[in-house]
């Protein structure tokens, strides 16, 4: 938005964004299309697109004039007009959208970028898709992934279950990348007895650039949904910095590990299920312990209690803060240091405030406390050090587990949706439901 002054000036002159204008400024003339003002920068500078395609900002000051030269065409997005012809020899994949712009179109005349979603738009952007499969699709909602809440997980789970009633061979869910691993974990718990793959996919680089990872990620996830035998909730994203292959990760053992790289999603403490070589249309399995495709019906179990918090243990953490979590949450996950520790101060150092009394009070008041490793990789072991033993004795849950903090959070929400009984909570938490706790710590799984 422009400053109020400019907005009202434009209004009085009946000038709208997209119109051709001339600006007079101290004997100089500037001509071009009036551009919208983006939220950043100086709102009293008028942005015009010059005839050479460049935008430039001209500060509108006293004495400057603006003149309408020609009304512009309203800038609107028109969906692609491609006829979808069903190929009965090919599988069918449903693509659902929950945000994260995986496809977009640029209008070079103005530089505007429009998100595109309809199946026709996807086919326009990714013509290879029709070589693999028939596609259907619809948008559930369009949110930044950091804005997705546990309530949205429930909507997605319901919609996926609904979609599975149609004759389809797999589902791809487009999702922003920031919290994709939370959603994948949630869907993993909520969608049981899956007959076909449910594959989450996103892009790390915006879809309005030729180098975006969107095409290869989408292609690989559609391949996985259409052809793979992995009937689980998975995440399919770039395997390395090159455009060679994608990994198919377990939805409960995957994590976003880099702010910006395209190979940001890594399997934690396990191997990915498969590698997808998109150009050869080949799926190379790395594991065999996954649920296979079947004829059964999906079971939706979307009851959760979203009142669970996740905090980091750190030097100087305040016991009062931890204790007060009971005012907000029905369950707490603490990402502990090392093997699963928090400050406990068994040696009575005068500078340290241990958390043991606070944690004890939390647990005694019926609030389960779950520990997860803040190291991300590795397994918790609370018997090695005195601090661990002291912590374990308070009744925290997590000893011997190798879940990620995010999966522990989602699982606790899921378990608290079933019961308030502390013993039952403990039992369910420590039960390996869908591979969220691995039995063995395999050597080659670190930093791969």
């Amino acid at each position, binding site marked *: 938005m422009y400053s109020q002054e400019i907005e009202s000036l434009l209004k009085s002159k009946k000038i709208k964004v997209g119109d051709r204008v001339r600006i007079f400024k101290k004997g100089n003339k500037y001509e071009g299309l009036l551009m919208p003002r983006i939220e950043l920068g100086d709102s009293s500078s008028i942005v015009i697109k010059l005839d050479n*395609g460049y935008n430039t900002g001209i500060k509108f000051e006293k004495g400057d004039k603006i003149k309408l030269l020609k009304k512009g065409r309203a800038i609107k997005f028109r969906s692609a007009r491609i006829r979808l012809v069903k190929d009965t020899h090919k599988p069918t994949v449903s693509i659902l959208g929950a945000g994260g712009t995986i496809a977009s179109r640029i209008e070079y005349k103005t530089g505007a970028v429009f998100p595109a979603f309809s199946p026709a738009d996807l086919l326009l952007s990714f013509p290879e898709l029709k070589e693999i499969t028939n596609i259907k699709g619809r948008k559930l909602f369009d949110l930044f992934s950091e804005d997705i809440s546990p309530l949205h997980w429930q909507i997605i789970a319901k919609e996926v279950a609904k979609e599975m009633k149609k004759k389809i061979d797999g589902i791809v869910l487009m999702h922003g990348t920031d919290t994709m691993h939370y959603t994948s974990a949630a869907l993993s718990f909520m969608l049981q007895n899956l007959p076909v793959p449910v594959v989450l996919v996103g892009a790390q680089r915006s879809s309005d650039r030729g180098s975006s990872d969107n095409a290869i990620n989408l292609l690989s996830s559609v391949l996985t949904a259409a052809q793979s035998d992995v009937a689980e909730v998975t995440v399919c994203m770039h395997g390395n910095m090159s455009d060679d292959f994608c990994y198919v990760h377990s939805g409960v053992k995957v994590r976003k590990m880099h702010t910006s790289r395209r190979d940001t999603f890594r399997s934690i403490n396990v191997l990915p299920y498969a590698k997808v070589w998109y150009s050869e249309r080949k799926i190379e399995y790395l594991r065999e312990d996954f649920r296979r495709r079947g004829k059964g019906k999906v079971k939706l179990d979307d009851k959760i209690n979203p009142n669970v918090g996740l905090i980091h243990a750190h030097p100087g953490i305040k016991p009062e803060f931890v204790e007060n979590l009971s005012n907000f949450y029905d369950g707490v996950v603490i990402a502990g240091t090392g093997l699963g520790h928090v400050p406990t101060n068994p040696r009575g150092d005068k500078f340290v405030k241990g958390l043991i009394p606070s944690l004890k009070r939390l647990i005694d008041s019926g609030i389960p406390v779950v520990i997860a490793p803040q190291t991300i990789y590795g397994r918790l072991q609370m018997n090695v050090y005195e601090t661990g033993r002291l912590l374990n004795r308070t009744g925290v849950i997590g000893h011997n587990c190798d879940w990620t903090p995010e999966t522990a959070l989602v699982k606790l929400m899921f378990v608290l949706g079933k019961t308030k009984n502390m013993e039952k909570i403990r039992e369910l938490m420590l039960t390996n439901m869908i591979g969220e706790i691995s039995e063995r710590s395999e050597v080659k799984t670190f930093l791969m």
Partner: protein
Amino acid sequence: MGKKKINYKRIKLKAGLEIHQQLDTKHKMFCSCTTKMREKEPIKIVRRKQHPVASELGEIDIAAQFEYLRKRTFRYQVFSNETCLVELDEEPIHFLNQEALKIALQIALLLKCEIPNEIHVMRKTLIDGSAVSGFQRTAIVGLNGCLKYKGKKVEIMHVSLEEDAAAIASEEKEIVTYRLNRLSVPLVEIGTDILIGYNPKEIQEIAYLIGIICRSTGKVKHGIGSTRQDINVSIKKGARVEIKGIQELGMISRVVEKEVERQLSLPKVNEETRAANPDGSTRYTRPLPGAARIYPETDHPPVPISKNLIKEIKRELPELWTKKLVRFKRKLKLSDELAKQILRSKYLELFEEIISTKKVEPNVVASTFVSTLKDLGRREKVKTSKITDKHFTKIFGYLAKKKIVKEAIPEILKYLAKNPEESISNAIKELDLKPIKKSELKNIIKEVTSQPGLTFDRAFGIVMSRVRGRVEAKDVMKLVKKSIKS
């Protein structure tokens, strides 16, 4: 085929120049990688595909791009200190390099441009893989400038600050390999308005003037590939032809002449893009593209340019080298050619320091830097890069004190290139280049010319062979003449 002289006014030659000059900044345009481009061995190769981005340009256009790109694989060479995640399009860009912005604004102001109040970084789509992201980032920093040439005003349309594209390392079938060290080195792009009424030589002079205006900042890169020129050429009733990538300034008039000849020889000229060959001829590359596909770089906020910043830059604006050129010619009595050459030489600064501190003829110093060094390198394959600034300063110090004559300089340089650790005095001793005393010279001349029947040329030749490098040839000539006469 006899060459007819072409009347460029009659055929209505029109040309538009686009000059690209790399800036000598510490860092690249949007990250902290060095711009040195020195590393030879890549530490990693990243393989990428590019995918067309749908646009309003139509479905056929997308389908064609898709087919073209589908077959192509781009291999990117990563260099340890010269490439980071930003060039690999694995990390969003950092803030626009302020050093580069300042130099670009200096150049825009030297070219009398209006400076926008707010700079918008744009993306220019490239589908040849030379930018990993699929586009080159560029921003206008100056509009509607001008420069004076032969009393006339040459209009400058725009000055842009732009990131350089990656240089191609090899191309095999459909696998193209790029070196990422040049990607995102800052450069300025200067576009002139259409030049009408000039001949090819004059067009080249205008390009030269723009070039040295850039150099006035003292912050531009030198050497092969640091300056690249594109030129649009058309003649009466013809079509616009764009010639890209003229690496040598001195080739511009040749290229224009040859292009005019080519266009005159054709019954119909097509609008197209051509690439310059080293000999000044051109080759077809593709049809002229439509308007550049430009859209905003949404990962970077607009950059406000405050009045204070402009004031500050204006206060520190360097002397225009066009003025320096005049000074070199008038005051230092350098020929036009020599003055221009020394202005483009990397020894310019050293040249100016030497002539301001030592009593030596500017002409001698300039031609040492411009032609002697070139000759030694080309003809005698001497590695002149080993000769240091200190060496040069000392040599001209000796010359000023008449401890050597100017004819000794090439020999001393040759010696120093091979023995960079040696002192000048040792070189003089070793090469026996101590100036000869006038009495001794007279004795030699007397001895030679006493032989009967010698012509002047012959006598001069014999004397010179005995005193070469130890006395100025013109002195020998004078004395031999005198001696033969008497």
